């Protein structure tokens, strides 16, 4: 037996080696199943472990307390003395604007860093240094890395603090300039979220740490607490939460007392301020009244002055008018006098002219007389001249006679021609000549030189010539003298006549002169009279002119004085107006000041009111991203609960088939061994060992790789969202054992069952070829309408399908499993994606919501806030309140948003409330409230049931459910105003504005948010787009996880199909060989086999779709977190993808198998049946 056993084991090893394809295929399927199952299951704990390690290493605070007023020393002491509190670390925090050198301004949460807190790994929320170093001196800053940090903020770059309020940064800090010395990650911030704030756009962009001494705040305003023993519990665990609850309650109680104490002082101060204000207000009002009175008086005075001026004007105007009349009368009289004067003057002028004419005639006559006289005298003178002339001529004649005598004597005296004349004689001769005719003498003297020999002749000829000429002259003169004597006698006679005529005229002229003198006297008298009249007129005229001038002057004076009066009045008026204006301005200013002071007091009152009545106590859930990480881990865990299990089961199923097939194949050998005397146990142990080995190796490989691969991949994917420096993927004994147990038990049990079943037969039976499974008619043949329509090959196919029922079910189940997995994978994605799509595109139709805080008219305030914004399309006001909902007697309660629209008819513009399945709209009625589906589901209530809710003022009301609306994110309760009033017996106080925006490409949500936040009344803004983006980002990682699931399911689909088809072909090898021998072509052979495969795949896919829907529903229900409802339905495309992928794998497998079929040896047909 020992030997036999040895050969038995040899056979086992060989059998494994020979069928290594099968062995590895079983191993591979098990490996795939186990690695997926173990890996996905390990992911949730690994995620939590990694986070937990990080939190513990960095001492993540269990409680974070924020006090807006700051902690008093006694509070800190009280905190430290609380039981269960291990450590209290105090610090400062302030939200500020930081501007980089490049000009990027962000909202930053600046926290204090005190190195002494962190010695020897002590301290709370220890920053985890990523780069650089911790700050050592003032002005150095640590940045918490994150997407909000501007990229230019590298190490050693500087940033400047700017503050939005009127106080500069130095109000809060000792320096406004910081240098980046390091970057860290902090367990407080595990996601990209940095929390909310009340400045800027309402969200913190990044967080930073500066040294504690850089802060100038009056008191510590943050405290981080470590609770005792929490380092022994895992984050996110219930045990941890139990540990936290009591100290949290204690801290909250402490906070209430402390705030009450602190606000009491404030309240007193405020009251004081109020009193002062009231007194000052009264004073100001009195002053204003006095000013008003003064102004009124001035106005009255001005009115009186105006009346007086008018009166005076009237009087003087009248007087001037009278004077003007008088003046006109005078002027008329003067005109008449002037006329009279002119008449007299004319008459006088006539007389005068006559006189002048007469005078002129006389003068003419006189002139004639005088002329005549002159002429007479001239004639006398002429006569006298003529007489003297005549005398002269006589004398001349005498003279000539004498000369002639002389000359003749001389001539006569002259010697003969040849006698010589002495010089004396010549001289004497000349002298003698000179006595009578000097000219001749000079002529001779000059013409005849004494020495001239011809002198005496020449003298003689000259003398003779002269004597001749003189004799002529004498004779002429004689004649002329005679004539003159005659003419003179005639002229003397004419003159005597004219003298006589003149005397007669003179006699006639004398009486005319006398007459003229008489008229002249008369005219002169008239002239004198006229002159007197003219003088009179001139005097009167002057007098009138004077009067007129005086009048004009008086009038001008009046005008001037009037103008002056008016001017003065105007000036007075202007002064009054100016006075009024000044008064009004001053009054306004005063009123404004009063209003401001009033507003300030109100603001202070409001602030006081707004000051929380307690400290803000946050558990770790208050850290941005902490809860989200836990939720994400839980979601992965939920997926792991069922999805990989199903996957695993499909894998096990395939192994089972494979093992069964193996045992059937070795039937003959089993029979032989049995015939040889081997025991049942020993024979079957071969298969058990075979199965065990395959599944053991597969499992061990599976979880070894699975524990590393899947958690690491998924955590890396989530790592894009979460800053957790650890990536722990430890060995999970539980999952290893579970998967090992499932894998081994399925395969081993399958092997055992099959071998035992086979071993039941006798060796003889076993060694006989197993009777082929008899063919038989199938029920479909009894349906002639169906059966007869099939052609022969189709009939063969159908019958074949039903012949191998086990294979049928295996294949169908295997394919169904894969399809179901694929569909579930896609379905999860759909369900997750549908949240954002349906929620934001179909249910939440609004684009944003503002929460305002006003006492009075919300409607007007909203009109002011939203109505003025260009971007806003429509808006409506509503009451929006976070309430706590529970069943009537329920223990579970959930937070929900209560929404009362001012006008429920307009609600449809902002929310589309409808039933999910029927899509029937749910209008708000006075009959009851509409609640969202998930809430109804959690509270297990239906339409008509009653819910209880508690509002923020702890008032409790009962509402009846009138409708359950499709909704995916958070819980909502909608009520009509009427129903709200019925339920609460009070009117809703609207505090929210829901709005839609114009579709605009260039819409800048950041700017829009800021523009809204600028309004003091706005306390909160939700923009659907931002919400949607954030939410989508959160779920994007899950998308990747789903992708892994789909890929794994695809791989499984392939392996399963390959294995099943392989078995199918192996089982039918003989049949295939036979039809090949019969002359079936390759394609006919493969279609003979594939037709069945395709039909099985078809049914498998169909079943898979049904299974997938069920699996999907189950997974989604498991995955769901409290305030999110995942989509319930799977998109048509996902069905299509699941079907197409299954078909793809099916075809791929068939394609690969085609070559195997081609290689099937026809010689097989000749072999005996095994």
């Amino acid at each position, binding site marked *: 037996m020992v030997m036999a056993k040895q050969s038995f084991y040899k056979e086992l090893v060989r059998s494994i080696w020979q069928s290594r394809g099968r062995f590895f295929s079983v191993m591979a399927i098990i490996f795939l199943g186990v690695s997926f199952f173990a890996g996905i299951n390990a992911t949730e704990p690994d995620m939590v472990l990694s986070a937990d390690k990080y939190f513990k290493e960095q001492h993540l605070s269990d409680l974070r307390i924020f006090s807006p007023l700051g902690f008093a020393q006694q509070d800190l002491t009280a905190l430290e003395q609380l039981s269960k509190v291990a450590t209290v670390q105090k610090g400062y925090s302030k939200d500020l604007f930081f501007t980089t050198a490049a000009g990027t301004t962000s909202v930053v949460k600046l926290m204090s860093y005190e190195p002494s807190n962190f010695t020897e790994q002590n301290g709370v929320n220890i920053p985890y240094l990523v780069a650089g170093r911790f700050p050592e001196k003032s002005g150095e800053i640590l940045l918490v890395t994150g997407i909000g940090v501007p990229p230019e903020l590298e190490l050693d770059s500087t940033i400047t603090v700017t503050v939005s309020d009127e106080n500069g940064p130095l109000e809060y800090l000792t320096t406004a300039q910081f240098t980046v010395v390091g970057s860290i990650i902090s367990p407080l911030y595990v996601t990209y979220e940095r929390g909310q704030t009340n400045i800027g756009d309402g969200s913190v962009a990044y967080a930073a740490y500066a040294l504690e001494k850089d802060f100038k705040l009056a008191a510590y305003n943050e405290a981080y607490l470590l609770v005792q023993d929490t380092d022994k519990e895992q984050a996110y665990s219930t045990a941890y939460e139990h540990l936290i609850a009591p100290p949290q309650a204690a801290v909250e109680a402490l906070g209430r007392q402390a705030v009450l104490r602190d606000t009491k002082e404030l309240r007193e101060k405020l009251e004081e301020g109020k009193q002062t204000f009231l007194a000052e207000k009264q004073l100001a009002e009195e002053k204003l009244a006095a000013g008003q009175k003064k102004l009124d008086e001035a106005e009255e005075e001005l009115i009186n002055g105006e009346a007086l001026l008018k009166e005076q004007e009237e009087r003087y105007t009248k007087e001037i008018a009278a004077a003007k009349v008088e003046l006109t009368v005078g002027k008329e009289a003067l005109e008449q006098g002037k006329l009279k004067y002119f008449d007299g003057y004319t008459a006088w002028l006539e007389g005068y002219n006559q006189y002048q004419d007469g005078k002129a005639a006389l003068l003419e006559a006189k002139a004639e007389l005088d002329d005549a006289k002159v002429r007479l005298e001239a004639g006398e003178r002429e006569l006298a001249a003529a007489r003297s002339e005549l005398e002269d001529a006589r004398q001349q004649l005498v003279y000539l006679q004498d000369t002639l005598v002389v000359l003749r004597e001389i001539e006569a005296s002259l010697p003969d021609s040849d006698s010589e004349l002495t010089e004396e004689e010549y001289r004497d001769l000349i002298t003698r000549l000179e006595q009578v005719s000097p000219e001749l003498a000079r002529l001779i003297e000059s013409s005849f030189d004494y020495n001239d020999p011809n002198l005496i002749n020449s003298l003689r000829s000259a003398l003779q010539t002269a004597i001749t000429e003189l004799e002529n002259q004498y004779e002429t003169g004689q004649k002329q003298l005679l004539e003159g004597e005659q003419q003179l006698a005639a002229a003397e006679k004419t003159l005597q006549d004219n003298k006589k005529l003149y005397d007669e005229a003179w006699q006639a002229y004398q009486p005319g002169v006398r007459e003229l003198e008489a008229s002249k006297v008369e005219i002169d008298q008239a002239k004198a009279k006229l002159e007197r009249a003219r003088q009179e007129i001139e005097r009167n005229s002057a007098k009138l002119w004077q009067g007129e001038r005086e009048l004009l002057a008086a009038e001008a004076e009046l005008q001037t004085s009037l103008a002056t009066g008016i001017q003065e009045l105007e000036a007075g008026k202007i002064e009054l107006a100016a006075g009024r204006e000044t008064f009004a301005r001053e009054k306004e200013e005063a009123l404004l000041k009063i209003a401001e002071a009033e507003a300030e007091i109100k603001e202070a009152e409001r602030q006081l009111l707004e000051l929380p009545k307690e400290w803000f106590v946050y558990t770790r859930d208050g850290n941005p991203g902490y809860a989200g990480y836990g939720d994400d881990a839980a979601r992965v865990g939920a997926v792991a609960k069922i999805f990989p299990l199903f996957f695993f089961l499909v894998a096990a199923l395939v192994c089972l088939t494979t093992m069964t097939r193996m045992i059937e194949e070795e039937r003959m050998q089993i029979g032989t061994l049995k015939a040889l005397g081997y025991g049942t146990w020993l024979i079957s142990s071969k298969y058990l060992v075979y199965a065990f080995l395959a599944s053991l190796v597969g499992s061990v490989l599976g979880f070894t790789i699975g524990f590393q691969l899947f958690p690491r991949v998924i955590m890396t994917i989530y790592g894009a969202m979460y800053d957790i420096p650890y990536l722990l993927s430890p060995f999970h004994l539980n999952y290893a054992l579970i998967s090992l147990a499932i894998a081994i038990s399925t395969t081993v049990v399958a092997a055992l069952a099959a071998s035992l079943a086979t071993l039941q037969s006798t060796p003889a039976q076993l060694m006989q070829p197993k009777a082929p499974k008899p063919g038989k008619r199938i029920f479909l043949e009894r349906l002639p309408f169906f059966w007869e329509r099939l052609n022969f090959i189709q009939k063969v196919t159908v019958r074949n399908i039903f012949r191998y029922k086990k294979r049928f079910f295996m294949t169908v189940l295997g394919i169904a499993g894969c399809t179901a997995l694929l569909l579930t994978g896609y379905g999860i994605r759909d369900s997750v994606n549908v949240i954002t799509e349906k929620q934001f595109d179909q249910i939440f139709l609004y684009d944003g919501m503002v929460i305002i805080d006003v006492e009075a008219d919300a409607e007007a305030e909203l009109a002011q806030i939203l109505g003025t914004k260009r971007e806003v399309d429509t808006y409506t006001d509503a009451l929006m309140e976070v309430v706590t909902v529970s069943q009537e007697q329920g223990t579970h309660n959930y937070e929900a948003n209560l929404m009362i629209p001012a006008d429920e008819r307009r609600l449809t513009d902002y929310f589309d409330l409808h039933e999910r399945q029927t899509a029937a709209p749910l209008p708000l009625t006075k009959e009851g409230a509409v609640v969202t589906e998930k809430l109804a589901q959690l509270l297990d209530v239906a339409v008509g049931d009653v819910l209880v809710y508690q509002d923020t003022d702890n008032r409790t009301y009962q509402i009846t459910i009138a409708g359950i609306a499709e909704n995916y994110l958070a819980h909502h309760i909608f009520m009509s105003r009427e129903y709200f009033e019925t339920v609460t017996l009070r009117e809703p106080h609207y505090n929210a504005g829901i709005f839609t925006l114009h579709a605009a490409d260039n819409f800048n949500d950041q700017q829009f948010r800021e523009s809204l936040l600028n309004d003091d009344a706005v306390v909160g803004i939700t923009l659907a787009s931002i919400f949607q983006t954030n939410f989508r980002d959160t779920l994007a990682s899950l998308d990747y996880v789903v992708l892994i699931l789909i890929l794994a399911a695809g791989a499984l689909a392939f392996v399963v199909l390959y294995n099943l088809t392989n078995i199918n072909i192996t089982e039918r090898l003989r049949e295939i060989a036979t039809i090949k021998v019969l*002359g079936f072509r390759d394609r006919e052979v493969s279609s003979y086999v594939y037709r069945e495969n395709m039909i099985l795949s078809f049914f498998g896919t169909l079943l898979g779709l049904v299974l997938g829907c069920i699996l999907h529903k189950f997974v989604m229900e498991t995955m769901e977190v409290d305030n999110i409802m995942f989509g319930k339905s799977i998109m048509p495309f996902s069905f299509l993808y699941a079907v197409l992928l299954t078909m793809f794998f099916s075809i791929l497998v068939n394609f690969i198998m085609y070559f195997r079929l081609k290689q099937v040896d026809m010689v097989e047909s000749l072999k005996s049946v095994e």
Partner: protein
Amino acid sequence: MAFVELHKVVKRYQMGEVTITAVDEVEFAIEKGDFAVVVGASGAGKTTVLNLLGGMDKLDEGSIIVDGREISQYSKKMLTEYRRYDIGFVFQFYNLIQNLTAKENVELATQISQNPLAVETVLALVGLQDRMNNFPSQLSGGEQQRVAIARALAKNPKLLLCDEPTGALDYQTGKAILKLLQDTCRQRGMTVIIITHNSAIQGMADKIIKMQSGKVAEFIVNEHPLPVEGIEW
């Protein structure tokens, strides 16, 4: 020219390091309408000859001519067509499709033939007209083999190849099957080649090919073949 001719046919199999010559320069010729028997012990290479003749395998040397066509030159595809239209095959273990009735099994063959015989006529010919709607499991071995022969005949092949047709049958049934085959040959002029280790059958053949170690040991032309009734084993 003979209907079936084999010329120096050589077929070798590579078994790891060793090359086995299964058929070594086999030569014989069979006339149309002959009833031929290839006989020999296990491993004599008769099945290889059958495979080669049936177009299920390719030879390494030599040539095979069937009805004037050299099938040894055929490609795989042409061989399929050759099997489809020219060859009828009867297996030792009948190789009926269990899931098809007798009639359907025959139909399976006629579906792919060019001018098949009427299914029911053929079934009547093999004496199964009453059982043609039975499944193979409902039929005895002889009946199953009849169905197999009917399936082969229905294709109206040129050559009927039978691999140990009586191997899985008892004596009487075997005889009946042999008679059916001989009758078919004689009455329908069908060329039939039977591969068998049962040398008793050779008496009823026209041509007897005795094989030994891959070679034709003896080729006998039997001028006086016996009727089936005349042979015993």
